[in-house]
């Protein structure tokens, strides 16, 4: 399908595809097995100028947007969803600065992220606050020219590996969700430590850790936007980053489909390749159609984001919801196509299924996405 990408977008996609094929595919299984962080791939990404595709040129990026972020994430995910998320989670951690940072903050943090010198991470979730983001317990106490943070963030992608963290903490607990604020915190700040590295079902190349703040003192200049805007920062960030998760899901589904098609032409049963059986052909046809539909929705939303549309919550949620459900289904079917071989870890397909699962959970569970969509639908009806 032709999505009328610009020349530059095609260049970005092709380069990401080349990196995925030549550099990521050969190491994906090993990083998954050993749960090691793919620094060597991050280095290749940096040298290829891909880290800053969604960052303004003024700050050392390529000047693209959500579409470029999606193209890179999808292509990398086609080879490894875990490695792709190291890139995409940096975008998630960077968007608060892009959207709400002042020029000084952008000048300080964006160039190093665009050049790939530093990774970023976003920290909202806590043990007692997942879907109910308003329930976060981490606090930021104002003391003169500083804020002092206390609390523990949980399951933070790129935790420990990233240098720059955007963290949501309560500055005024009594105001509930309106009492949350967003901060930029650098690794190495006294009072800021990391908990254990989590053991996960999928995306095992990526690092997931706790962030522990214990009387962590940061300058006032690290506040993003104004006090009380933390929740808005988080929601607006998710609006922009959800197409990225959708793209990850599309890439994972495409990768699994690629393997299934290839295998179906090699595997012989009853004296014929299994691709000659209509039952299997129908499965492949359905998988391909679903992947293309997910891609079309994802790209449409990414383009909508890039044209500067004001409210993209509903569409963004739809893309993430649909693409991740497709990824789960297609990767499960891909294993079915490979049969017993698909279930074995010697073949790459079971990993796609493990990697796909998280896309239905993070950056808002798919149930939360449905909430967002329904809420917007009902609001639209009220507006008439």
């Amino acid at each position, binding site marked *: 399908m032709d999505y009328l990408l610009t020349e530059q977008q095609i*260049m970005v996609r092709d*380069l990401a595809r080349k990196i995925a094929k030549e550099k990521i595919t050969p190491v994906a299984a090993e990083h998954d097995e050993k749960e090691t962080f793919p620094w060597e791939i991050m280095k*290749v990404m940096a040298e*290829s100028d891909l880290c800053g595709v969604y960052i303004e040129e003024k700050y050392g990026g*390529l000047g693209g947007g959500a579409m470029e972020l999606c193209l890179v994430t999808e292509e990398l995910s086609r080879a490894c969803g875990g490695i792709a998320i190291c890139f995409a989670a940096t975008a998630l951690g960077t968007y608060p600065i892009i959207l709400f940072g002042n020029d000084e903050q952008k000048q300080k943090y964006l160039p190093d992220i665009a050049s790939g010198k530093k990774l970023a991470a976003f920290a909202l979730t806590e043990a007692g606050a997942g879907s109910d983001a308003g329930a976060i317990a981490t606090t930021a106490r104002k003391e003169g020219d500083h804020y002092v943070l206390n609390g523990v963030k949980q399951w933070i992608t790129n935790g420990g590996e990233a240098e720059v963290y955007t963290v949501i903490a309560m500055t005024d607990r009594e105001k509930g969700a309106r009492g949350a604020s967003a901060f930029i915190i650098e690794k190495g700040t006294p009072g800021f430590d990391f908990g254990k590295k989590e053991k996960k079902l999928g995306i095992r190349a990526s690092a997931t850790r706790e962030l522990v703040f214990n009387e962590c003192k940061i300058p006032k200049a690290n506040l993003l936007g104004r006090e009380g805007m933390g929740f808005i920062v988080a929601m607006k960030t998710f609006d922009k980053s959800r197409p990225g998760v959708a793209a990850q899901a599309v890439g994972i589904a495409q990768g699994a489909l690629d393997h299934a098609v290839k295998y179906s032409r090699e595997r012989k049963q009853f004296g014929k390749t299994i691709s000659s059986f209509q039952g299997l052909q129908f499965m492949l046809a359905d998988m391909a159609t679903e992947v293309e539909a997910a891609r079309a929705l994802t790209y449409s939303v990414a383009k909508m984001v890039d044209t500067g549309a004001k409210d993209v919550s509903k569409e963004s949620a739809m893309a993430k919801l649909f693409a991740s459900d497709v990824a789960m289904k297609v990767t499960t079917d891909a294993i079915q196509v490979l049969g017993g071989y698909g279930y074995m870890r010697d073949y790459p397909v079971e990993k796609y299924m493990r990697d796909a699962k998280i896309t239905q959970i993070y950056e808002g569970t798919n149930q939360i996405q449905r909430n967002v969509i329904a809420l917007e639908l009902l609001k639209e009806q009220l507006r008439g």
Partner: protein
Amino acid sequence: MNIIVCIKQVPDTQDIRINPETNTLMREGVQSIVNPFDMYAIEEALRIKERLGAASTKVTVLSMGPSQAEEALREAVSMGADEMVLMSDRAFAGSDTWATSYTLAKGIQKLGKFDLIICGKQAIDGDTAQVGPGIAATLDIPQVTYVKKTEDIKEGLAKFERMTEEGYEVIETPLPCLITVVKEINIPRLPSLKGKIKAKQSKATVLGAKDLEVDPDRLGLQGSPTAVKKIFTPPKRTGGQVLQGEVPDIVNKLADSIKDVVISVSKT
């Protein structure tokens, strides 16, 4: 320092097919790539440039071929090469390695002062490994073939490690010189986005026969003494012979059959 990298656009042999009747390459629909050995040459030039300082070193990529060979040159620029020169002219068509070496050497002379010429050890389509050495001979400069490491390089002098079948040799040579490189020398980098954008915007300098001081009789088909009489696929090897039984018996049988071969060869 001026470094010139000679590259060739070749069909991607990974998806190549041979016409079984004519035994020639079926080029339709086959993608063109930069000769893989030339990728190591480009990478080595870029590494030397990084080592000596970007400001004082210029990497020029040079290719002889039809206009579409500019794509290969662009790939080198997207990796970081500074300039590209395409030698393209109907008069060059049909060149064998002798005429190609001559033409490329004349093109290099036209470009002015140079310190180092780097070529891949051979192209994967012809596999002759003759053009690099041919250029050096025409220009009358030293050559070091099968280089696997640049040990040292500075104004007027360089030291290379050269692969041999037994090990390697260390060769010190004055500059200018020509080297051909093997795949052990480095891992070529991927292009960068900024490089790709630059490559898209740049244009190759095109040199034709009339731009060069050349003897027209030494160009193209008429300047090529090589004549291809016939192209054929060598017969497939047959299965061989498996010796079975007790070890001493096998050794004796083997020794006898070797003797037979030696006798029959010495008789012919």
